[in-house]
């Protein structure tokens, strides 16, 4: 039985701006549910630089990114937000009554009256190398951008490309699973963890894998299914290698992800908004923080906070077109509560 959640505003992205939106919504008695693909709240602040000090949060001469997230979580506690963490919103549907139905990767269903996209940099997705025909062999036809299930590669001939940690780690791991492993690296040395690099060298010396340095995979061949790749050396020499699977592992890069397919007006991979209330081209859907764009946009946490406040005002009017919105000062109304 899939989990179904009902709320006023579904906030996509649990970064600082998404979290502060819960506060601003709470002042207007709007309930929020927050979804994030990462397993913990805080977005890039928790995931990438929790120990970095931030110096441009008003009122904090210096605060660690991780502490800012902790403080925001404490600040929104009185409003009892609910969370779905570690799941990505995939499907998006506007219903006839103007409300929305969202589905996550893990089948969680969220029904909400308004959507606030606070997706930051987007989601981190595999970087694709510039190889001719790459897309033709995606989707089970031989090209894999990540190793989801190592067993899939059992007794298959594979070629891995890349020089980072994941290329080294998977080469070492799959050496015992696949029937034939070739690692292609454009350089001559590896910057990845020294012990993984050493292990790869040893496997190559023992003949358990093939290590092809100073080379790139340049062409893919096959009729409907990947059959051969061309590996070209930096000196221009090329050779063709038969294989079942090609696994390019070139790290992750932030991409807009599924949000890009919801029919919202975009510009340069960011969601275009009206700065009146940070509404997108689709009524009831708002975008705040690093994911949006408008003339004069600054990607700053403090600007995202401002956007969150105005967004909630717009969402309130969308949800309750007949109710009169009044600005609430916390100094007048006392400690926040729901």
């Amino acid at each position, binding site marked *: 039985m899939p989990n179904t959640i009902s709320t006023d505003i579904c906030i996509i992205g649990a970064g600082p701006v998404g979290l502060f939106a819960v506060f601003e919504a709470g002042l207007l008695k709007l309930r929020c549910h927050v979804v994030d693909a990462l397993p913990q709240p805080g977005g890039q602040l928790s995931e*990438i*630089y929790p120990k970095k000090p931030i110096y441009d949060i008003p009122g904090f001469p210096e605060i660690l990114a991780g502490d800012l997230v902790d403080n925001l979580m404490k600040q929104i506690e009185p409003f009892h937000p609910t969370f779905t963490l570690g799941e990505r919103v995939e499907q998006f549907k506007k219903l006839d009554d103007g409300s929305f139905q969202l589905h996550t990767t893990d089948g969680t269903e969220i029904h909400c009256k308004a959507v606030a996209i606070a997706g930051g*940099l*987007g989601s981190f997705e595999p*970087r*694709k*190398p*510039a*190889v001719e025909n790459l897309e033709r062999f995606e989707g089970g036809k031989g090209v894999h951008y990540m190793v989801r299930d190592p067993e899939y590669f059992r007794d298959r001939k594979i070629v891995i*490309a*890349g*020089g*980072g940690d994941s290329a080294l780690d998977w080469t070492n791991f799959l050496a015992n699973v696949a029937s034939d492993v070739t690692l292609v690296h*454009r*350089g001559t040395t590896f*910057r*990845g963890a020294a012990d993984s690099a050493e292990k790869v060298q040893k496997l190559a010396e023992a003949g358990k894998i093939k290590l092809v340095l100073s080379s*790139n995979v340049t062409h893919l061949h096959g009729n409907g299914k990947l059959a051969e790749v061309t590996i070209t050396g930096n000196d221009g020499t090329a050779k063709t290698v038969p294989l079942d699977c090609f696994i*390019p592992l*070139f*790290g992750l*890069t*932030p991409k807009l992800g599924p949000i890009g397919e919801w029919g919202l007006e975009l510009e*340069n*991979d960011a969601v275009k908004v009206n700065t009146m209330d940070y509404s997108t081209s689709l009524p009831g859907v708002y975008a705040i923080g*690093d994911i949006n764009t408008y003339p004069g946009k600054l*990607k700053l946490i403090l600007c995202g906070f401002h956007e969150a406040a105005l967004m909630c005002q717009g969402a309130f009017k969308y949800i309750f077109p007949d109710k009169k919105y009044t600005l609430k000062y916390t100094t007048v109304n006392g400690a926040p509560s729901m």
Partner: protein
Amino acid sequence: MEEDIRIYVEEAAGQRTELIGPTDMGLSLMELLKASGYDIQATCGGMALCATCHVEVLAGPALPEPSDDELDMLETLPMVHEGSRLSCQIRLSPRTDGLVVRLAATGA
């Protein structure tokens, strides 16, 4: 106020475009390129996380060594050149006067 510096961007056709960059604003090369209208995503905003501001340094003064973060990010790219750098990690200063770069952000 410090002097402005000159940065040259080599275009596809081979000609070089001169950009004037201030050195008293703590700007990175990425920010100058973006402000000059070059099509650079700079998704991560300058944290050496996305490599969409990848440039190839063709000539000019010696630059400070790249940080480990920058080298790690460059390492993951499918294609790099001898002078590959992340332009967000290059600060404009009198030491970068006369730098010649080419945009290289493909496959990111």
